[in-house]
């Protein structure tokens, strides 16, 4: 049932990513119409629970989605199997999660 769990996790994460991408693009296009500097954008996002939650959820979904996708590619194209396949998928997923969360912290962190 591992395959079925991964299949569902990848579909559910895709369903989370798609509307968040649209929200990100929509807000970005709307917000810069009058001309906004990076400092002005950060002034609005820092300390915001909403943007922290939104981008945190996005990063989590992307890390899960991409790691499962890469696992499929490694299996099919490079015939990687067993613990190596699982290990590489985890490393990639956790790496993506760490890099993404660091970016989220930079956008919403108050320090």
């Amino acid at each position, binding site marked *: *049932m*591992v*395959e*079925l769990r991964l*299949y*569902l996790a990848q*579909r559910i994460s895709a369903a989370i990513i798609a509307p968040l991408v649209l929200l990100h693009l929509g807000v970005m296009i709307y917000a810069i119409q009058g001309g906004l500097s990076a400092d002005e954008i950060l002034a609005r996002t820092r300390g915001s629970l909403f943007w922290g939650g939104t981008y945190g959820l996005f990063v989590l979904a992307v890390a899960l989605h991409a790691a499962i996708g890469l696992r499929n590619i490694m*299996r*099919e194209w490079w015939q990687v199997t067993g613990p190596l396949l699982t290990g590489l998928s985890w490393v990639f997923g956790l790496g993506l999660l760490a890099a993404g969360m660091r970016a989220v912290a930079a956008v919403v962190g108050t320090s």
Partner: protein
Amino acid sequence: MTESVLDAITVSVWRGNARQGGFQDFQVPQQPSQTILDVVTWIQRHLDASLSYRFACRVGMCGSCAMMVNGIPRWTCRTHVKKVMQDNRLSIEPLRNLPVIKDLACDMSEFFEKWKRAEGHFSGRDTRAQPVAKISPTDNARRAADAAIECINCAICYAACDVVAWNSEYLGPAALNRAWSLQNDARDGRQAERLQAVSADGGCLQCHSQQGCATFCPNQLNPTASIAGLKRLASVNFLHKKYRERYG
């Protein structure tokens, strides 16, 4: 009508076995309404009797004569030369994704083994002591079964599938299409076992929905849609099961 050299087709036929092989060119005269199977038969009868290939019905029912024609999997008995010939040339190879026995004949064992692994056989729910099941032809499940049922086991979809090429354990479009047909047959009694078989590793979840199978199926079936149906069924069944385990 006399046949001139201009009427000849240059046919590159793959010759060899599981270990080695290559293309051999033959000159074959063009005929009206000539099929690819006619070309192969003409070569065997007039030019090289050692050419091996497989056919049976010659009318598109048995699924025996599928080959790669100009790189595309086709049923050769129903493929007209005029429709596929390019610059008076043809290339004919054994089906992709299956081991070659000799020349154009490939070993179909794994193709049919995968039918078995996908529980591709009908298993009646009732005994002969019970009355015949009444099934409306307009019933949604019956319509889904009917849409997938006309498979002739030619393995063209199997040859067209990139996932089969990448993953030798993948059951393939034909076996999964057959499984979907049986999952929608109200008279079948092994649907739980079959769903488990097709949701396991190498089953329906491996399909990338590239639709090579649907593009090349000579009977215009859509195995991709059947596989999508199996994915839905497996997902819903799994979530229902988890919900029942948790909430009773």
